[in-house]
């Protein structure tokens, strides 16, 4: 790897190459958390993101929030990201699952498995902001944004990338490249990694409501014929915590546009009809969002000196709020195998290391995709025999503590072969 000056075809001068160990493409919640894990461990990382990180950092409340399972929260604690999130994060103490007008419901109380909550609801913009500030404090991390990777050469000896940003082109030499560029990952597509994908013919409508009574930090998952309707506790106004919730309303894809087009009063009426009155009067606050729901899974998560993490590798139904959590499990596992290899002096991008990551994550991700897919199929209909099965199933789970505990540990993200970061151990 020699240092050379050259001219790009456009005649723009090319700055001298930047040597790093790991190139992360995509600086979203998953990519930035991974960069923190490496940077905190003294590994040189370069993060390239198409969005200017300063854009929208100080924007107001936008209503988008994520469920951070307990295991994921441990990752954020270990990486020193949590302190900035902690005051505004709403603990999920109980989960109630119910269906239509059925008298049966499942009640998961966190005290059944210990003292800790299932997880926390965190606003996405607050997580992004915390990550941005954390990365700025880490000397080994170099963020290039807004910029994009315009050429990528992966070979046995190393990786060379051309990054184009506002200041021109930079050549980057690395040992490993990580695709954290989301559902529409260009890194994945350019690598020729195929994607299995199907649409659920459903849309997820996301908005925020304030309500008269406190949610008491209970998450409600209400199964309606069109799909799950989730009411997730937010902290809300710090002077009056507990009176604000994030909604994920699954609707038939063909109906969603007309619901989104309703005026505020009519939208609120449709919402109240589904939400019920158990928290008193409700009011929609902030913007509404609608996303098409699909399942997609990459045929492999690794390639020559390449690993995919998060939505680039797998996108799932939001029914169990596990998308970001699965991404953070990828982060914890990949950071661990790469650091273990590096501490043995091994080439961090070699196939033995990447194979370990793939074997570790493949089963877990596939299981979660299948579980969320199965749940959605089981619940998103109004077929009478299935309703009976569901009701009896929920009553049975409630009556059988071991089975209930199994589901609860899954919701907390504590099931399976956990990486060190999720076991309160140092990376």
């Amino acid at each position, binding site marked *: *790897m020699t240092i050379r000056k050259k001219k790009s075809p456009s005649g723009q001068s090319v700055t001298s190459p930047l040597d790093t*160990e790991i190139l992360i493409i995509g600086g979203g919640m998953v990519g930035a958390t991974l960069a923190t894990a490496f940077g905190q461990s003294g*590994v040189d990382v370069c993060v390239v993101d198409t969005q200017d990180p300063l854009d929208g950092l100080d924007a107001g409340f936008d209503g988008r929030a994520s469920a951070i399972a307990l295991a994921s929260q441990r990752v954020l604690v270990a990486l020193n990201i949590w302190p900035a999130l902690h005051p505004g994060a709403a603990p999920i103490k109980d989960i109630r699952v119910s269906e239509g007008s059925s008298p049966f419901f499942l009640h998961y109380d966190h005290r059944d498995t210990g003292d800790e909550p299932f997880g926390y609801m965190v606003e996405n913009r607050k997580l992004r902001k915390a990550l941005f500030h954390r990365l700025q404090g880490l000397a080994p991390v170099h963020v290039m944004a807004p910029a994009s990777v315009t050429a990528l050469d992966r070979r*046995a*000896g190393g990786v060379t990338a051309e990054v184009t940003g506002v200041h021109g082109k930079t050549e980057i030499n690395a040992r490993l490249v990580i695709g954290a560029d989301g559902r529409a990952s260009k890194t994945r597509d350019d690598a020729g990694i195929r994607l299995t994908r199907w649409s659920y013919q459903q849309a997820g409508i996301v908005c925020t409501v304030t309500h008269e009574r406190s949610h008491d930090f209970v998450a409600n998952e209400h199964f309606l014929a069109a799909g799950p309707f989730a009411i997730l506790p937010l902290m809300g106004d710090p002077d009056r915590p507990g009176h604000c919730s994030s909604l994920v309303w699954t609707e038939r894809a063909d109906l969603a546009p007309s619901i989104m087009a309703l005026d505020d009063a009519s939208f609120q009426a449709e919402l109240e009809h589904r939400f019920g009155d158990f928290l008193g009067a409700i009011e929609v606050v902030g913007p509404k969002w609608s996303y098409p729901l699909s399942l997609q899974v990459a045929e492999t998560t690794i390639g020559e000196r390449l690993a995919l993490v998060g939505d680039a590798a797998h996108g799932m139904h939001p029914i169990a709020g596990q998308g970001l959590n699965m991404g953070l499990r990828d982060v914890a596992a990949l950071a661990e195998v790469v650091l273990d*290899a590096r*501490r*043995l*002096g091994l080439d961090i991008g070699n196939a033995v290391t990447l194979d370990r990551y793939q074997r570790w994550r493949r089963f877990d991700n596939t299981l979660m995709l299948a579980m969320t897919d199965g749940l959605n199929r089981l619940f998103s209909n109004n077929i009478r025999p299935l309703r009976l099965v569901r009701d009896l199933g929920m009553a049975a789970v409630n009556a059988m503590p071991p089975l209930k505990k199994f589901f609860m540990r899954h919701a907390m993200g504590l099931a399976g072969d956990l990486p060190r970061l999720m076991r309160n151990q140092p990376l």
Partner: protein
Amino acid sequence: MAQAAMKKNRKNASPAPSTASPDEIARFTAMAEAWWDPKGDFAPLHNINPVRLEFIRDHLARHFDRDPMDANPLDGLDIIDIGCGGGLLAEPMRRLGATITGIDAGQKNIEVARLHADQSGLDIDYRHQLPEDLGSEKGRYDVVLNMEVVEHVADLDGFLGAAAGLIRPGGAMVASTLNRTLKSLALAKIGAEYVLRWLPVGTHDWRKFVRPSELAAGLKDHGVEITDLKGMTYAPIERDWRLSQNLDVNYLAFGVKR
């Protein structure tokens, strides 16, 4: 930091041999790719490498009072790797901070190792030599690595004497080899060569395998006291090698020079 060391060393890396013909360079490049392909001919070595490295790193860190989790736990240690092959151990040792010399009886291996170290930007002193050729370096090294070699040598005592002679007093030796048991005949010879095809037939001569007691006695005669022995066991479900207490087949030894 390893990264800083790599950058610094890139400048000092020895250039590829200039006397070699382009044909030869192409041949060595192909061989280097084969040596370094984790799924290729040397896959078994790649697979056992992490567990061997862990044993070496942890023992050397303890012996020389270093933190094994440091970026450069072997910083400044003068290490010689006997039977270095394509450099699978020497390169990691260099990244962990050691000054490393690699010797091998095969000229081609040395060319391959040099080429790959150059590609990796690592400066490693590779030489086509045998330990008995290094009389002038007696007592020079902090550590001698003697990995997967003793089962291939003709004169075990002569070899152990020459290898042990390279270590300074208070220095260390790490050795690994195959035990001579019925189990190793079944697994390492017949299993690995004929059944699983992990190794080419004829790679090993079971009669040359060395019992831990023979290794210990042989080294003791030359001033090296073995202080730890560990087995290397394959876990088929995890498809991973692990350290274990079972010395029946593959084992590792750590010894200290008086």
